């Protein structure tokens, strides 16, 4: 039985961005709009329990937030004229969205909000923080927790970004066709970063942060629905193909389960099919993007009936393509692991040793963990013990620590036997 409290929470998840975006239209200032939207949700919490949940919660919230905004504008009109306002295209006029839950203009409003938060003139950190705060509706404390910084640091970062939006007049609009490629990439980057942070939480007690993963998939869906071009299609394909394995990525205690030990019958087949369709769509829509290539790698895993049946040769060659599009040390590491799976652990170790000089990987926990795993497979117990100990020092996630500790105990026992 859902309570009015649940209804407010659900409306927060589903409609925060839409309500905020519609309110920014009125206030043309993010801070004021945020205040009005927060007021509207607070009023929902107060009145829905006694008055009942409205038929169209989103429209209700937009109306309440909008009235509050108009109220504030009237009261502060003289003072506000002196303030830098969020610029909006003069041509942007939309019908007043009061009579339906999802009028078309709202989706477009949300897209404007996403593009404003992910403007390339903002730092990458600021883009992620603003997107989580303004589009996903996470609190500043939650955003800070997701990115391992103090709440005060994150609050300052968000304030600075909002100030730049106002002072430099970053417009609240969907970019023109000419600007689109660069802007879509910036947005996709942010969504991908939110997803990876959620699916491999660097700290905390759980490996997966469902809230962040859910937000990222939701954003990728919105983006793809509104801009069905190659990059968002590839991104959504990738997120679905990885998220399809979520149920099997951890055990009952929240500890990570390796790909080879996952029960593939629990993988979400519908998500896999949708992901593969989107991947095909993305490849048809233009030259392969890095997300499409990553999605193709995820698809090879998804299509293998068993771990042993995985087509590692295909994966190694896909990583070659990926490295041309996105030459990152982490991609090199993943390729080295795939190479070890194709040619055996010795070959894997040789490939990993070549990466030891990469400064970016020097303290990367997965490099030590990958070395440890190959050494374990080769039965080189003392070296494996050292590598597991190294990986343990480098990880701050409790679930990962538990996993590595268990493996370390296993290799120690084998060493003594």
């Amino acid at each position, binding site marked *: 039985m859902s309570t009015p409290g649940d209804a407010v929470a659900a409306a927060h998840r589903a409609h925060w961005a839409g309500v905020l975006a519609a309110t920014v239209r009125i206030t043309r200032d993010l801070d004021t709009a945020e205040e009005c939207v927060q007021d509207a949700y607070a009023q929902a919490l107060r009145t829905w329990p006694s008055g009942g949940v409205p038929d169209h919660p989103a429209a209700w919230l937009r109306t309440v937030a909008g009235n509050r905004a108009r109220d504030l504008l009237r009261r502060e009109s003289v003072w506000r004229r002196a303030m830098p306002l969020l*610029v909006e295209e003069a041509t942007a006029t939309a019908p007043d969205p009061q009579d339906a839950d999802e009028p078309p203009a709202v989706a477009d409003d949300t897209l404007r909000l996403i593009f404003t938060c992910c403007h390339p*003139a903002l730092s990458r950190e600021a883009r992620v923080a603003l997107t989580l705060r303004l589009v996903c509706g996470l609190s500043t404390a939650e955003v800070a927790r997701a990115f391992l910084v103090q709440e005060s640091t994150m609050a300052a970062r968000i304030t600075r970004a909002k100030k730049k939006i106002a*002072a*430099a*007049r*970053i*417009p609240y*609009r969907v*970019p023109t066709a000419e*600007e689109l490629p660069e802007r879509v990439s910036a947005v996709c980057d942010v969504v991908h970063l939110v997803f990876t942070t959620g699916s491999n939480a660097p700290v905390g007690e759980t490996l997966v942060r469902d809230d962040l993963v859910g937000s990222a998939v939701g954003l990728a869906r919105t983006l793809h629905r509104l801009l069905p071009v190659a990059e968002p299609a590839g991104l959504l394909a990738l997120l679905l193909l990885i998220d399809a394995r979520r149920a099997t990525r951890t055990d009952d205690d929240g500890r990570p389960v390796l790909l080879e030990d996952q029960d593939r019958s629990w993988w979400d087949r519908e998500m896999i099919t949708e992901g593969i369709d989107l991947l095909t769509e993305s490849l048809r829509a233009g030259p392969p993007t890095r997300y499409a290539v990553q999605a193709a790698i995820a698809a090879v895993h998804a299509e293998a009936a068993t771990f042993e049946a995985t087509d590692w040769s295909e994966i190694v060659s896909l990583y070659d393509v990926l490295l041309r599009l996105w030459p990152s040390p982490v991609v090199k590491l993943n390729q080295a692991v795939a190479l070890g799976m194709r040619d055996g652990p010795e070959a894997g170790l040789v490939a990993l040793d070549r990466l030891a000089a990469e400064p970016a990987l020097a303290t990367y926990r997965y490099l030590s963990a990958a070395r440890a795993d190959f050494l374990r497979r080769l039965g080189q117990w003392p070296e494996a013990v050292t590598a597991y100990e190294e990986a343990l020092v480098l990880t701050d996630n409790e679930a990962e620590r538990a996993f590595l500790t268990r493996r370390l105990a296993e290799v120690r026992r084998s060493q003594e036997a």
Partner: protein
Amino acid sequence: MSKYMLLIYGDEQQWETISAEDMAEIDAGHVAFQKRAGDRILASGQLEPSSTATTLRGDGEAPAVTDGPFLETKEVLGGFYLIEAADLDEAVALSRELAEVRHAHSGVEIKPLVHHG
């Protein structure tokens, strides 16, 4: 409309040894920029090399007059435009006409002027 200062920075050593071809490309960029920006350009200028700069500064005392730029850096301010634009995106779009934004040793910094209502 808002006012933006476009500050064109570059490496002076590269500038001194620039090829005629690159110089022509840069000139063409300025012509294209001025054509597109039209009367939105409020002021502009190319600066003499930083060896001609004079700095006045002091710490509470009467300022001392010294030879040289305020900051000793490889990339120096070589020229500027003061323009009017609707928003940052328009200022960025106009700046793209300048060839300096396509070379690794130069770039354009866009700064909004404080908006006094």
